[in-house]
């Protein structure tokens, strides 16, 4: 059985923008990874942008991965309906001033990714944007960051803990995916330049949108592949 990894659009955008989409086929071939996207993510990164010439190059390359079965689209009504429930819960975890004013933090694509995790017995969620990742890893940290921006923000802490418990799945970013692939020879064809290319790719991912700190980048720069 493949190792299913549900992919959010934020990571696929980072990989596409840095010419690192090859990581997906590399890991599919060498590690039996099964990369999955829900319908809402397909629409975000293929459907809608393919109609705008400025964004169509990225969209065409990701569509190619779908056509080549490197990315598998899972679209069914139960995913959308489960995503609705997830959005209803996530979007009532935090509020402005009082619980009658909930803050909408997640949208359809991210919620559909979460909805796929359990039914597909996924190994991880690939996500570069911080809110979905923090909901899985440390919702308390998300709350404190929100409070720092808007001190009147409140949270339903019990619901927050329950939400996190519902999704016991590790989150990984495009940087971890690329670093793991690099450790296993993804940049091997660069021969003596392999390490330099790997280190540069981590910087490139950051500037393409991966939420990674400078300290983490520095740690990656110390890694040899």
């Amino acid at each position: 059985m493949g190792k299913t990894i549900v992919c959010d659009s934020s990571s696929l955008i980072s990989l596409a923008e840095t010419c690192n989409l090859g990581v997906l086929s590399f890991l599919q071939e060498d590690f039996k990874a099964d990369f999955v996207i829900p319908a809402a993510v397909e629409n975000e990164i293929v459907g809608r942008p393919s109609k705008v010439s400025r964004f169509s190059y990225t969209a065409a390359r990701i569509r190619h991965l779908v056509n080549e079965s490197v990315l598998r689209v899972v679209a069914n009504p139960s995913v959308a309906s489960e995503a609705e429930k997830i959005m209803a819960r996530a979007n009532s975890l935090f509020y402005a001033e009082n619980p009658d004013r909930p803050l909408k933090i997640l949208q359809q694509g991210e919620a559909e990714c979460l909805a796929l995790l359990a039914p597909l017995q996924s190994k991880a969620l690939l996500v570069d944007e911080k809110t979905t990742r923090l909901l899985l890893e440390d919702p308390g940290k998300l709350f404190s960051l929100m409070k720092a921006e808007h001190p009147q923000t409140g949270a339903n802490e019990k619901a927050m803990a329950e939400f996190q418990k519902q999704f016991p799945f590790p989150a990984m970013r495009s940087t971890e995916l690329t670093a793991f692939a690099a450790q296993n020879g993804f940049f091997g064809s660069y021969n003596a330049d392999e390490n330099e290319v790997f280190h540069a790719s981590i910087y490139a991912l950051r500037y393409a949108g991966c939420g990674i700190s400078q300290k983490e980048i520095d740690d990656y720069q110390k890694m040899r592949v």
Partner: protein
Amino acid sequence: MDFKEHLILLRNAFEKSNIPELKRLSGEFAGDAFIHYRKENIQMSIIAYACAKFLEKPYILADPAWDSFRKSLLSLLEKALQDWSSGKQAPAFAKVAKALSLIERLGADLGRFVFGIIEKAKLKAGAEIYAHGASLGTAAELSGAEKKELSSYIAATRMPEKYVTKSVAQRMQDAKKIFS
């Protein structure tokens, strides 16, 4: 802060050509857009940012189209304020939307620079919403910015410094487990 107060602050700052205040308001309106999930706050944020940028450019202020734009914008903001004060929310929102269209129309007279400002204003609003806690998808949806452009705009700020939860060593251990 309520919508009426926003309108007053925006009108006053534009009337006085107060560039720093317009820039400050742009960020504040975007943050409020997240709190109220209201697109009118985004429109106000874009208007404030665009006006600040226009006021920074002497060649725009010297253009014959500027005077008429300035009068029309102030008049629309004033009418929106009157509508809101008399309990007519929908017409007030419609006037804010019209004020944004006025900026877009100015683009037809002044060229590409104006359209660039509107796109930049959406990115700035989206980044503010993201900083307030929204996901990238929500921030893009509410601000009207393209997700791809918003994510690289955010990446170039210092925001990602705040979102660390695990060390790289831990993350690489997790990756090994995932693929083992």
